[in-house]
């Protein structure tokens, strides 16, 4: 067989194969159909309840919608409405305040707890279980317990009872604009810190033990070891938890919704609570456009924050 003839026959076989692969029957025989069928639940569920709503969110934010009349295009009107709403500024300020306070309580305390817990090998399991317990309590139960028992404003509230022994109080924890937000943060930290403790504990076990021994031999003290070994070795995890905590607290909804409904005097009105009020607050549907616009702004802010944060900290992070 000449060289060209061989080339032609090779090409013919390849062509036949390709045709076989691209014909519907060949595709199905090759496992293409099975793969598609197996992917069906994922494609259907994510399509309907994740991808489609994301697109719809963007569309809604540029529309006037009320579920009765056909939607009309609104241009940037919804965004303008939100930004010009004085409650928007309040909500931004309150959400930043919540996030800042939550960081102040919920970031260093679990770290200190985790360092102490990991040094106690015998009681480690019990310690971490105790720290994690509040996380498994349903949030609604936690909030109600704090609202109707711990923060009860009369003198028989649990906190007021204890403070009463020392001659303080009674305080209206959730009733005064000054203490309402910190009270929410304290409960939320109680409810969520266990997760952070577990993450830190896992990170602490991966710290290279030899470094501690080497530093000890070189005469480094406890604080220098924490500062120069523990924290730098954990920096990847510390950065991630920082980011996750910001992302989580910007979305705070349940606490202001159930504790205070945003009061007193809008002191605990957060961004997602404002979304809820736009969409479902007065009569359902009137403010869907504004609600969607504000949701989109929060989503874009969080996405930008994550990307910028990861870019900026890439060189510090080991992971």
């Amino acid at each position, binding site marked *: 067989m000449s060289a060209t003839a061989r080339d032609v026959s090779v090409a013919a076989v390849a062509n036949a194969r390709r045709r076989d692969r691209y014909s519907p029957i060949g595709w199905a025989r090759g496992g293409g159909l099975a793969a598609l069928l197996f992917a069906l639940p994922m494609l259907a569920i994510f399509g309907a*309840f994740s991808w489609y709503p994301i697109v719809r969110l963007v569309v809604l934010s540029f529309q006037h919608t009320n579920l009765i009349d056909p939607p009309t295009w609104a241009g940037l009107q919804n965004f303008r409405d939100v930004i010009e709403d004085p409650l928007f500024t309040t909500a931004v300020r309150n959400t930043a305040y919540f996030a800042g306070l939550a960081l102040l309580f919920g970031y260093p305390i679990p770290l200190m707890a985790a360092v*102490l817990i990991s040094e106690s090998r015998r009681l480690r399991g019990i310690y971490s279980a105790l720290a*994690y317990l509040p996380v498994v309590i*349903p949030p*609604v139960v936690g909030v109600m317990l704090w609202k*109707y028992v*711990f923060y009860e404003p009369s003198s028989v509230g649990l906190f007021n009872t204890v403070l009463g022994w020392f001659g303080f109080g009674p305080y209206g924890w959730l009733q005064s604009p000054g203490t309402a937000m910190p009270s929410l943060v304290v409960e939320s930290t109680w409810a969520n810190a266990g997760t952070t403790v577990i993450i830190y504990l896992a990170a602490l076990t991966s710290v290279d033990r030899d470094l*501690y021994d080497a530093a000890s031999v070189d005469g480094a003290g406890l604080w220098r070891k924490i500062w120069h070994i523990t924290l730098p070795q954990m920096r990847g995890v510390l950065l991630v938890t920082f980011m996750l905590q910001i992302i989580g607290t910007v*979305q705070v909804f349940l606490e202001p919704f159930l504790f205070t409904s945003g009061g007193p005097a809008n002191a605990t009105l957060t961004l997602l609570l404002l*979304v809820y009020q736009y969409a479902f607050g007065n009569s359902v549907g009137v403010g869907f456009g504004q609600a969607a616009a504000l949701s989109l702004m929060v989503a874009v802010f969080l996405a930008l924050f994550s990307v910028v944060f990861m870019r900026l900290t890439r060189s510090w992070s080991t992971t």
Partner: protein
Amino acid sequence: MSPEESTGGLLSHNEWARRDIRWFFGSGQVLLFVLLVLIGLGPILWLAKGAITPTIDTLRNPLALFPHGVAWSNLSEAWSHVNVGRYFWNTIVLAFGSWLCQIVVATTGAYVLSVLRPAWSRFVYALLLGTLFVPWIVLVVPLYIEVVDPPLIHHSFAESYWAIWLPAGASAFNVVLMKRFFDNLPRELFEAARMDGAGPVRLFFSIVLPLSKPILGVVSIFAILAEWKNFLWPFLILTNSPDRQPLSVRLPAIQAQTQIGVLLASMLIAALVPLLGFLIFQRTFLRGTGLGGALKG
């Protein structure tokens, strides 16, 4: 033990031997223990106490320990008169459906992405990862509109459990977790099964699923817990069907007309299943595999 020997920890033996450091860390740990018991266990113990304390005693002195005896009747009253039994059942049904949907989507989806790997699966996987950047709660408005006025179907699914079960399945975190696990299963096993003539269906049910029991357990535990904790979505969807609402939606609603002793009993009942689950599956929770899901808030 000589002081030079490694402790494998932050503190060397030398340091454990130093009185000031031992005192500092020792008292820190005692303090930590007291605080953790107080903060972690305290509220639950108080809730358990309050649940079986006569309302009048809880109102007079919340810290007294049964000054006028125990009121077991709170629990039975909550269960039957306040209908907590029914809401408990609703919660179980909702959690079961959401669990089923999540497991079906996560196992079949991960099977395609990790084992079958058709050409388009990388594109789907990228779309899937993209949704991790979109927090669920910002989609509440479009999801609500979609459920109340779905495109093409035009039949409202408000007040229907399907509107809670099906969206629960759209958890990219579950699929990623499952895919990572499938990625680490031995490929030779799949090849051997194919050689023996096993098709994709056979491979899935006889090889992949039986090997995945650990990750199925993890995803299941977190799926059930998440639905048990869920509030906003069932609150919006089941607004007009109080008899079909789960505990988390019902508890705030019954608060005003329920005396505190019975209310606390209802809250204890609502917290019992997650607490028991935690006690039984402690290691799963504390190992941290599913924490990303817990963080979705």
